[in-house]
């Protein structure tokens, strides 16, 4: 006599919580790194504009989707740092993301491992109790590094302590959709900065210092150097971050992961043209056969298109799996 096996299933609502838990964990990491890298690389940046505090602060706000378009308006450094990191009133701040990740984890706490839940909770209390005054004056490095490390711990717990079943697949879908989205958004923000920093000389965009910053924002600078053994240019950077499937943060790699995990959830073997897996597979195939030169002709258009497609995939998932 074997053990009575329960029919393994998952509530649609809980699946939604898992998905967003994954997304918010991933999002808080990218935001923390963006703040860190931009702030510290601007301190000794080669170009006058990219060394400017105002330029760096604007870039931060652009990234979180709250851009300051009025060129005459002087931004206050402490305010911007507070808003993007510890201001609970701003939905885009690191703390709001961690809070949302934890609230989603609360809704799934009977399904995830105790180790994972405790790590999320510890993370939440760390962020919640962080001294705001210390942070805006001298805590940026300490805080953002800690956030990045905590998210790595969480990914470790997700991979190392959960059953690799549907629960795992859904969290990984959230993480990878978010990763692809954030990487594209960071490319967008830094491309915007590169254009600003070089004025109208388009040939200089190709060799801008902002590409180095971009790679660091995505934690891919070292590996990119190892791969090309050359100073990054716009072409090689975009190729590495979008098309190189060996780069763990590339859009291509994220799409491969999404394809893999969505197949765990597929109810039927035949993939209908109205399914998530069809949309993901299609986008992956398109990018797989895209040449970087084609992207470079119209970076803005390409970025917009990918962002829209990722939103479409996420919405399709929600409809297919999270509502009943």
């Amino acid at each position, binding site marked *: 006599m074997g053990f009575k096996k329960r029919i393994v*299933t998952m509530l649609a609502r809980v*699946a939604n919580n898992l998905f967003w838990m994954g997304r918010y964990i991933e999002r808080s990491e990218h935001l923390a790194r963006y703040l860190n890298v931009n702030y510290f690389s601007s301190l000794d940046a080669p170009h006058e504009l990219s060394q400017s505090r105002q330029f760096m602060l604007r870039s931060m706000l652009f990234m979180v989707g709250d851009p300051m378009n009025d060129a005459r308006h002087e931004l206050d450094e402490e305010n911007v740092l507070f808003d993007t990191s510890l201001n609970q009133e701003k939905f885009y701040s690191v703390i709001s993301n961690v809070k949302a990740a934890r609230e989603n984890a609360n809704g799934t706490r*009977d399904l995830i491992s105790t180790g994972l839940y405790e790590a999320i909770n510890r993370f939440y209390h760390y962020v919640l109790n962080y001294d705001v005054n210390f942070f805006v004056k001298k805590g940026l490095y300490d805080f953002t590094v800690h956030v990045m490390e905590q998210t790595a711990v969480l990914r470790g717990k997700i991979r190392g302590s959960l059953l690799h079943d549907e629960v795992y697949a859904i969290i990984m879908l959230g993480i990878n959709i978010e990763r692809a989205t954030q990487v594209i958004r960071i490319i967008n923000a830094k491309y915007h900065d590169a254009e600003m920093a070089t004025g109208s000389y388009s040939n200089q965009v190709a060799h801008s210092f902002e590409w180095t910053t971009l790679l660091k924002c995505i934690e891919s600078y070292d590996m990119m150097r190892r791969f090309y053994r050359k100073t990054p240019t716009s072409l090689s950077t975009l190729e590495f971050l979008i098309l190189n499937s060996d780069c763990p943060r590339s859009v291509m790699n994220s799409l491969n992961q999404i394809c893999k995990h969505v197949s765990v959830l597929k*109810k039927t073997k035949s993939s209908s043209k109205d399914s998530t897996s069809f949309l993901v597979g299609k986008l992956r195939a398109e990018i797989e056969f895209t040449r970087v030169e084609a992207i470079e002709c119209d970076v803005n258009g390409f970025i917009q298109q990918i962002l829209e497609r990722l939103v479409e995939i996420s919405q399709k998932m929600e409809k297919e799996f999270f509502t*009943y």
Partner: protein
Amino acid sequence: MPEDKDPIIFSSYESKRGLFDEVFNEDGSVKSIYKTLFDLYGGHSVYDYENLNNKAKASFFNQGITFQVYDDEVAQEKIFPFDLFPRIIHPKEWDMIEKGAIQRSRALNLFLWDIYHDKKIIKDKVVPLDLLSSSENYLHQMMDLDPPGGIYNHISGTDIIKHSDGQYYVLEDNIRCPSGVSYVICNRTALKRALFGVFNHYQAHTVTNYAENLLQILETVKPRGVDNPNCVVITPGRFNSAYYEHSYLAKAMGVELVEGQDLYVENDFVYMKTINGRQKVDVIYRRIDDTFIDPLEFNPNSALGVPGLFAAYKKGNVSLANAPGTGVADDKAIYTYMPEIIKYYLKENPILNNVRTYKCSKSDELKYVLENIDKLVIKPVDEAGGYGISIGNQLTKKEIEKVREVIKEHPRKYIAQPILSLSVHPTYIEEENSFEQRHIDLRTFTLLGKDKEFVLKGGLTRVALKKGNLIVNSSQGGGSKDTWVLKNES
């Protein structure tokens, strides 16, 4: 070892005369059952102990064992204060508590069956009819309905105290949605983490077997024709103050934790919405109050419940634990009849004492109450959580007059009991950095199924943290202690 200048933790302990101290005799010597424990704790300096205490607190926060308190409309996350000095219950005393708790649960179950069927106990004039007819918790919808397995109160929480005469008394039976069992288990975990060494010296019963027993009990009341029942726990949601407990129980039983929105009813069967379509639900451990379980049958504004759930229950297609309508049997007016109820159904004498209760609904007893408010505790019949209680000897003359007027206006709504002196236990008080006497009670957890019963060997010892306070509820600033039931006298 503590240095000379570090005070030893018990050095400033004061024993007040007239109180029953669980640990110390009147002459200040330590009771034999606590001797070993006292020696182990006594070696700690205040500084060591404060460290251990802080570690235990952090562990509760990280485990997310918290509840929400609403202050000025802002929700604050708090931990339930935990005391590292455990309470020990002698095996002989426990034996009586356990038998008494089962006796009360069984009697209440038979009482519920009777009042929702033939009402023999009323016809025999043991319990007056107006006690039921005036109760808001009596559900006419439950009339003549046979709950699966014949069980109403699958889960009971019995609140027991030790009076200054050294005897145990039952204060309350809770058979709606009694909570607190998860804290019993967390307290044990926290104490093990902080002071694992002390467990080597005592043989205490485990408390981690609660969830497996609960699942077995739930499975005994599966609907007819179901082989392998699908049990779930339903919660009002993650903003509920007991959400931790709901998720803990679901996880420990390995069943799904659902909210009302996850379920729906079709053709009088209950289904949950999963990523792979629908799945039938057979047994629901519900942590939602009666009036909210089904907007079609009860409170139409309830968004927490499931429309049509009660109809499915009526058809016998789903089990609810506890059954709706149990609230009629655990209010304070019925409590006063418990000795008669036990004798009537079980032909046994009550094992656990009831507190002498004066019913303001009876004119002679009302007269006594109005004249002796200063010696009594006045309680509203149908309030939970320690609200609305007046303790006579703590009131000013003016306040007594006010209470008198309130009782006169609605005598049916109040009962009175002699002021009990809850036993005290040494409890670490953070603000004072020392141990002080604090009043305690005990909530036991009893499970009743078809041909199966279980009492958790342990229970929640609640501590009134405010000096001199007798109310131990967590919403009124209470804490708790790990509770050891010993396997032998050691």
